[in-house]
């Protein structure tokens, strides 16, 4: 497909398959080799660029989503005689060693300073936490950012926006791309594919039978799972339904006592949104501990729930908050409580002709205590060894009510800790009860040993995190 966008202020047009990586477009099609590849899976940040001002990893951004976008790469920054202040900071502080991570670091620094012009050390480390440097130990990089923050930053080149073309279904190298702008269109695409593809044109087969026929269609949200190597069965031939331009799917709103989170809401929004922070702090915490800035800018709520990874971070928080998943198909909508949504390892009740369009949570009562904990592989870009979320009401007498506890990475799917919930319901907290809950939670899960952790530790830490929730959050 042909895609028009600007790179460093210059209008560009390329012909690319819909899921071609922005990284390859920049390096191979446009010859902009300052953007580096270190992993191809969103982990290292060497490929970082700015997409409409937001830090992204170009190895995870598909061509189909570039239409009308403004991209900034390292090539647009200063010149040798007049280096950009960030580049100057890196030079002056001796923050460069092999240099392979540096273009990405410089762009991550720009993204950070644009949001937070005077970051403290912690904020700098967090802002750069998706950019791995194996040479420097980060010490001088942190100082370089501090130094850059002291000088006034020129705004990065802003391009005249190129009009976004709404991609029409189009055969490009054997694939079809759908970039609908309304939900109705999206659902029709889905139904058509689910029922045997446009060629059949019948459109009235039972959606239950969709599984066999939908295999060729890829639903694309932020792409942070889908763009990983090996994630798509046949990247060149399948067709793509891109949700990124569908109006009304992103955002947080409150009607009466319900807070509704659109499925295209990014994790970054969940981390920053004041209503989420106020009413759903467990979810806000899960969002803040999720990936690193560039991942949070792209990853969506819907993608996290659709992927149904047992290690995903948002489901435990949402399970504890008794969330409802709103599924929509061309024939209607249905609300599914999240605690019956997951059915097995990477399996859910969602039919193939359905989209997740939103998540709804009833605003928790003001006396609800909530928390989310993640025992991860490291402090950022971290997948949970185990995670625990809790929500409970504690009345004046100290009695626990509406206790909900959930855990990730300890069973084939994100789960509620039902036995522990039952144990705690209606009880008054004391040290003995906390110990019992610790033991019961450890016992009721079904963890496995894998590359990240083992059974003993997963049991131990799940129990301990439940105890922590009770101890630190549920005292009267």
């Amino acid at each position: 497909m042909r895609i028009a966008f600007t790179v460093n202020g210059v209008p560009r047009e390329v012909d690319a398959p819909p899921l071609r990586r922005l990284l390859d477009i920049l390096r191979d099609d446009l010859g902009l080799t300052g953007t580096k590849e270190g992993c191809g899976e969103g982990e290292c940040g060497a490929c970082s660029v700015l997409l409409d001002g937001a830090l992204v990893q170009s190895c995870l951004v598909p061509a189909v989503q570039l239409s009308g976008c403004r991209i900034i790469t390292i090539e647009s920054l200063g010149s040798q005689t007049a280096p950009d202040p960030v580049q100057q900071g890196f030079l002056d502080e001796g923050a460069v060693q092999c240099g392979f991570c540096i273009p990405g670091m410089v762009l991550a620094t720009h993204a950070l300073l644009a949001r937070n012009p005077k970051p403290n050390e912690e904020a700098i480390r967090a802002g750069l936490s998706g950019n791995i440097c194996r040479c420097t130990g980060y010490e001088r990089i942190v100082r370089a950012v501090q130094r850059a923050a002291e000088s006034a930053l020129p705004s990065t080149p802003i391009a005249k926006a190129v009009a976004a073309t709404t991609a029409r279904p189009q055969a490009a190298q054997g694939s079809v791309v759908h970039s609908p702008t309304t939900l109705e269109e999206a659902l029709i695409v889905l139904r058509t594919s689910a029922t045997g593809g446009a060629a059949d044109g019948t459109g009235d087969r039972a959606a239950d039978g969709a599984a066999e026929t939908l295999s060729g269609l890829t639903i694309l949200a932020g792409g942070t799972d889908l763009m990983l190597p090996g994630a798509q069965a046949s990247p060149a031939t399948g067709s793509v339904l891109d949700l990124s331009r569908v109006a009304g799917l992103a955002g947080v709103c409150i009607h009466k006592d319900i807070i509704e989170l659109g499925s295209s809401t990014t994790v970054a929004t969940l981390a920053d949104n004041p209503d989420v922070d106020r009413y759903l702090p467990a979810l806000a915490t899960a969002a803040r501990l999720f990936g690193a800035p560039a991942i949070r800018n792209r990853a969506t709520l819907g993608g996290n729930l659709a992927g149904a990874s047992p290690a995903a971070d948002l489901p435990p928080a949402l399970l504890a908050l008794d969330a409802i998943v709103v599924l929509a198909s061309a024939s209607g909508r249905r609300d599914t409580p999240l605690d019956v949504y997951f059915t097995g390892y990477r399996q859910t009740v969602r039919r193939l002709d359905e989209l997740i369009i939103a998540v709804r949570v009833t605003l928790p009562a003001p006396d609800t205590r909530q928390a989310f904990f993640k025992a991860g592989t490291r402090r950022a870009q971290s997948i949970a060894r185990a995670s625990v979320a809790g929500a409970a009401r504690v009345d004046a007498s100290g009695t626990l009510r509406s206790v909900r506890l959930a855990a990730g990475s300890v069973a084939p799917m994100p789960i509620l800790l039902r036995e522990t919930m039952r144990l705690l319901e209606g009880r008054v907290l004391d040290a003995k009860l906390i110990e019992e809950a610790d033991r019961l939670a450890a016992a009721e899960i079904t963890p496995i040993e894998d590359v990240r952790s083992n059974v003993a530790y997963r049991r131990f830490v799940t129990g301990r995190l439940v105890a922590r929730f009770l101890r630190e959050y549920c005292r009267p």
Partner: protein
Amino acid sequence: MAGTEDETTAGGVPRIVGTSPVRTDGWEKVSGQAMFIADLPLADAWIGGTLRSPVPRGRLRGIRRDPAFDWSRVSVVTAADLPGPNTVAMIREDHPVLAAEEVRFVAEAVALVAAPDPETLRAAIAAISLDIEGLPAVLTMEDALDGRIVIWGTSNILAEYCVSRGDVAAALHDADLVVEGEYRTGYQEHLYIETNGLVAIPHDGGAIEIVGSLQCPFYVRNALARGLALSPEQVIVRQVATGGAFGGKEDFPSVLAMHAAVLAQRCGRPVRMIYDRTEDIRATTKRHPSIVRHRTGVRRDGTIVGAEIDIVFDGGAYTTLSPVVLSRGILHAGGAYRIPAASIRGRAVATNTPPNGAFRGFGVPQTMFAIERQIDRIAATLGLDPLQVRRKNLLRTGDILPYGQVLEEDVGAEAVLERVVEISGYEAWHGKVGRSGASDGHGVSPVAVDGRGDSPRARDEQDGRSLARSGRRVRRGLGLSLFHHGSGFTGAGEDKIAGRVHVRLVPGPAGDADGVYEVLVSSTEMGQGAATVLCQIAAETLGVPLERVSMPLPDTSVVPDSGPTVASRTTMIVGRILVDACHDLAQRLTDARVAGERGPVTGKAVYQPTPGLAWDEVAYHGDAYKAYAWGADVVEVEVDEDTLEVSPVRAWAVVEIGKAVHPVLAAGQVEGGTLQGFGWACLEEIKSSGGRFLNDRMATYIVPTALDAPPITVEIIELPHPRGPLGAKGLGELPIDGPAPAFAAAVTDALGLFPCELPITPERLLALQDGPPTDLASAAESP
């Protein structure tokens, strides 16, 4: 660490050595203009790929090509098609270019394919199938040693060396106490952010050119000359900007270059081979896993009277550099301590796992972890402070090492130890809470030293981490390590290499006055700053401004062989030869201009053996290193009691390196090496199943992010060394030797547990916590 800007050299030019100008390759790197191997445009190049063994050991009965595939579209090479001997020449010739009769590790290369594009390449590789009859494999060091299955030589031993001094049996017999300990370390992957990659370009008459991301151009040249049966002159190796190496581009590029070269010769066009991350992790070398056992005889006051040390390194399937890695590990196994009687044995064993090789530290981090933990164990066993035991035993000028070398020059051990203790507030911390291992969870912080705030990590509650941590049950601990690292090649290595350096003056339009000086060496810039530092040494020696000196990327057809860029030898050894070459240039220049010659002039020098230093390779005795650099680390850790996650929250590193040619680059080496050391200590782990690595992606091989890195305070002490250029000793590897044991000691301090195995993961700590109590006294036996 401040530069000495007001000093001037004899020539009236401001001093350059000891100052920190912006590095010579700085701009091209911050601007993205530096050309790495993947950035080179090569329109007619094909892409090379590798078909690898799926099993750890097996008889290769056949390689079948699917007749349905159109093989005319690609070029394929198997062992049968090789133009020369099937060997990648390194220390030995046991490493085949491609497996022929037997495959010996998962991911061993069996067939190579070159194709015009990635899709064709993938399809072609998928159309080749291997017929392998599985054989029983040796997957652990224990299995290799027990020798029931022999996969290498007659006993699976790739190399064995012994060092001994004095009567150890008598010393242990007379000791008040013999303390025993066993220590283990795991793999470490270099995880340079740029993976291994290079291009082979065929030339007329069979000649071949290699352009790539590499550390040692002449290693590659020599391996190709042997493997392709060419003369060395028919092989040209050029380095391009290299995105980190840390030893991982020392030996492995010889393998990759052989692969690309045979493909290029076969298809008659350039072939580019750049590994993706997973292939890089699965197929390239790692730091050797180790098991080290100590028996140390001590007096009640903590004085060491004798030591027996047994070292085993897992070499993987082929020899690569294991003998020299082992050798360096053995020679540093006694740590920075005086051991009057010592017996040290080391063995590198073969297993059916990918061959291990060079990694910054080169065997020392493993043995240093063991001796440093052993010192902590001695302290705990005797009820002494670990610092006191170190003070009592540390090496001083005039002391003799287990292999007989007398430390005649200034020994920096005491200086670095006392300084790190002072700036970290180590004694104040331990003074308040009592000795290590006996305390229960500290709330006290060490003294602040540099205005970062009075708590070691008073950080704002602004980001995820703080949020995740607020109100946590946390224990803190402080740990210490003392270590050293020999500069340059071990033993007579430098004499054998006999490194050569040229410096060329190319006159400008106005003659010599605006001419440029080129430092011509095979030493490579891979981030560590060699290009800047060598230019500084040349500029200072020649008395010219730094801007007039450059160091072109090495090309083996142009530069002399100054030796490989390894062993912390570039600044000290190559820098020293460079000084001589600059003096030679000055002399020749005078002669040439007097004679009326106007053209470029080249000064040359070759390594001069140090008179009086002697190394006996057979007895393993003598002056193993020209000089030693010294270091001491203190780290403060925070342990989350509920999750047993440990993070380094603050670190101090003091190093003594003779002279910091470029203090900022030197500090950068210390910071980077220190963090790699912490990564190895607590995060970096490769688990295997049936000889297959499970952590083979960046998502599963976990290295520190900026949030996992502690602020690191570095101080450099300078005790100029007579054999280094302007006093400088080696630095590059030293900083990775100390962080892991300091980290382990801090965990002991915080939790009262005594980890003996790296990495110290929450899973391991849980097992320790749930296991039998660490009764350190029972580790001792009264003889």
